[in-house]
C-alpha cells in the first residue's frame, strides 16, 4: 500500500532511522538465492564495469525509471535490498528486446536476468507481480487453456480503440473473414489456429510437470481455477475419444 509520506524504499525495504520494520534478512536472502539458483544465472551475469552501454541502448530506459546497468550491478554486488526494491516495479519496465545482451562486452544479459527476477517475484507472490499481470490475464488464460497466445476474437475495436477504425478494412463477420484465409488451420476465431485436442492435453502435462500451474495459482487463484476446469474438461474429452477408439 502506498503512503504519501513514505518513499518506495521506506515502504518496501524499511527506513533505518524509523520504526518501520525492514524486510527480514532471511527473506531477502531467500529471494536472491532463488534468482541465483536458476541455471541461466551464471551464464547471464559475468561481470560489469559500469560502462552503461546497455542502458544507453535500452528502449525502456527512454521512458521509465529503469536501467539495465543498475539491474546488473545490483545482482553483481549482491545488493539484496536493492534487488528487492527493483522487483517492486523496475523489472516490469523491461521490454525484453535483448539489445542490452547483444551489446554487452561482458556477455551479460540484463534482459535475461530481469526474467529470472520476474519468475522469482511470481514465486514469492509479490504484490507487484499480481498487479502488473492483472491486465495480462486474458493472454494467460488463452495460452494455458488452448496452446495459443492470441486469437482473432481478442483483436477488436473495443479492446484496442487506439488502433483506430482500420483494424479491419473489409466489413464482414469475423467467421467469414477467417474462412477466407486460404489456410484451413486458420478457420478459427477463438484460437489463432486449430489446435488438436491431443496437443492441448500434452501441453497441460507440460504445465503441470514444470510447475507453471503452481506459479499461476500463486499469482491469480481465480484464473487458476478457471484453467483447471477447462483442462479437466478437455482431458475428459480426450479420454472419451480414446475409449471410442478402443471400442472400434
Amino acid at each position: 500500500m502506498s503512503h504519501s509520506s513514505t518513499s518506495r524504499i521506506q515502504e518496501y525495504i524499511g527506513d533505518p532511522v524509523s520504526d518501520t520494520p525492514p524486510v527480514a534478512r532471511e527473506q531477502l536472502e531467500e529471494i536472491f538465492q532463488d534468482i541465483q539458483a536458476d541455471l541461466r544465472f551464471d551464464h547471464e551475469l559475468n561481470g560489469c564495469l559500469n560502462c552503461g552501454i546497455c542502458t544507453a541502448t535500452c528502449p525502456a530506459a527512454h521512458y521509465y525509471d529503469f536501467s539495465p546497468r543498475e539491474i546488473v550491478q545490483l545482482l553483481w554486488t549482491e545488493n539484496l535490498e536493492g534487488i528487492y526494491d527493483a522487483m517492486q516495479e523496475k523489472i516490469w519496465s523491461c521490454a525484453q528486446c535483448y539489445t542490452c545482451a547483444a551489446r554487452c562486452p561482458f556477455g551479460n544479459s540484463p534482459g535475461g536476468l530481469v526474467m529470472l527476477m520476474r519468475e522469482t517475484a511470481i514465486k514469492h507472490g509479490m504484490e507487484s507481480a499480481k498487479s502488473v499481470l492483472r491486465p495480462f490475464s486474458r493472454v494467460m488464460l488463452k495460452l494455458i487453456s488452448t496452446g495459443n497466445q492470441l486469437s482473432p476474437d481478442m483483436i477488436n475495436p473495443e479492446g484496442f480503440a487506439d488502433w483506430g477504425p482500420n483494424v479491419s478494412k473489409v466489413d464482414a463477420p469475423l467467421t467469414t473473414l477467417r474462412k477466407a484465409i486460404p489456410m484451413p488451420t486458420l478457420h478459427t476465431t477463438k484460437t489463432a489456429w486449430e489446435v488438436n485436442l491431443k496437443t492441448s492435453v500434452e501441453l497441460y502435462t507440460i504445465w503441470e510437470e514444470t510447475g507453471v500451474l503452481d506459479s499461476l495459482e500463486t499469482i491469480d487463484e481465480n484464473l487458476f481455477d478457471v484453467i483447471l476446469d477447462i483442462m479437466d474438461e478437455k482431458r475428459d474429452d480426450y479420454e472419451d475419444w480414446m475409449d471410442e477408439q478402443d471400442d472400434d
Partner: protein
Amino acid sequence: MTTGNGNGDNKGGERFTGHGAEWTDANLSQKDAQVATVWVEQIVNKRSMLTNKDRVEDVRDAMWELEKDGEIVVHRINDQHQPAMVKTLYGWDKKIPTNQLWHHKSCGQCGNIPGYPASLLWLMNKMDIRYLDETDQTSCTAWNYHGSGIGNIESLAAVFLRNFHQAYVSAKAQGLPEGYYYPLVHCGTSFGNYKEVRGYLLHSAKLRDRVKTILGKLGRLVDGKLLIPEEIVHYSEWVHVMRDRIKEHQVIDCSNIRATVHPACHVYKMVPEDAIYDDDILEGNRLAVTTGVLETLGTQVIDYSTWYDCCGFGFRHIISEREFTRSFAIDRKLRVAQEEARADMMIGHDTGCITTLDKNQWIGAAVGKPVELPVLADCQFAALVCGAHPYKIVQSHWHASPTEHLFDKLGIDWQAKKKEFEEYLKDVEAGRGESLYDPRLMITSGPGYKAVEHKGD
C-alpha cells in the same frame, strides 16, 4: 555555471545540464560537433558492436559431442531438404533447408496478420515446395513468458522439444519416414527463444534430465533420447536463400519503392552469433535477411538512424503499457522512416514488430504526430510483387496501416481487387473457399485424423 548548449550557440534555456560545476561548454559549431561525434554513428549500431565478445562458442559443437556420446538424436538437414549454405555473424556456416518444411506457425501472425503465413505458403506453392501445415502444434509460449514471467526454462524447453518432435514424426501420417519434414519457424520470438533454449539444453545435463522425463511421459523421445534440431531456422532465412528463385516469379516492378527494414530483436539480438550476414548486403553491417530479398526484387533499401532500435512491442507493454509501445513505435521508428528515409513502406520479419508498427499509427494524429507508412512482412511484399492477390492471399485488410498507398505506387488497382474479394466472400460463405493445400493433411493424429496417402515424387 554552464551556459552553452554544446553547439556554441548560447540560446537561453537550451543548455545541457547535469554535468556538475566542472563541466565547461566546448562551444563547437554545429558542423564541428557533428564531426566530433560522427564516430559514434560509424561504430554504434554496426556489426562490429556485436562481435566484441571474448567468449563466443558455437553450441553446435556441443550438440555433435552429445550425439556422439549417444545422449541425444539430432534431426539432420540432409539432401532431401535441398539445403542452402549461408554465413552467420562470425562467418560460421548455417544450413538452411529449402524443401520438405513443417510450418511452425506464429500465434500473433495467424491471429491478426493471417496474410503473413498465407503469403509464405503461396510463395512455396509457386516454387513447388513440399510442406505441411498441421494442427498438432502449440505456441512456443515465449510471448507469454517474456511478457509475464509465467513459465520457466523447463516449460520453454519441453514445449520446444515437443513441437520439434512432432515436426520430426509428422510425415508418418502420410506414410513417409521420420525426419522427412524439417521445422520452419515463422515467429521471431519463437526463433530466438528456441535457439536460447537449445543452448541451455546442450549445456545442462540437469535440464536435459528433467525435460527427458516429461518428454518420455508424452511419448516424445526418439529411441529413448531427446531430439535436437541440427539448425533452428526462421522463415525469413528461407526467403533469403530463395530470393533469386522468388525473383523469377516477379511480375510487378518495384524499383520506385523506397523501403525501410525493421529487423526483429529476437531474430538477431538473441543468440546473435546465429544471425545471417552477407558482405554484399549493406556492406555486411546489417542483418542480411529481408534486406537481401528487397534488394533482389529491386526496391531501394534505405538505411536510417534508428535501424537498430526495437519496435516497442515489449510483450506485456503492447497489452498493458500501450503508451510506451505507441510512443516508441511512432517516435523511434515510423516517423524516422517517414521523415529521414522518406520511405514508402516499412518491411519486417516478425510478428510483434509488424503488429506494433502497423497498428500504432492512427493514434499519432491525436498528439499531432500523424504517420502513414504501409507496414508488411517481407514474404507479403515478395508475394505481392509476384502477383499474389492483395486481399485473398496477402490479406491486407487485416492491416491498419495505409497499404493502399503502396498498392497505388506499385500500380495495383486495389479498389478492383477489393471488390473481387468482397464478391469472393459470398463463395466463402457458401463453403466454396479456396485453400493453398489439401485440408485433409492438416490433422496428423488424434480426433479427426484420416490417413491420406502421399502423392508426389
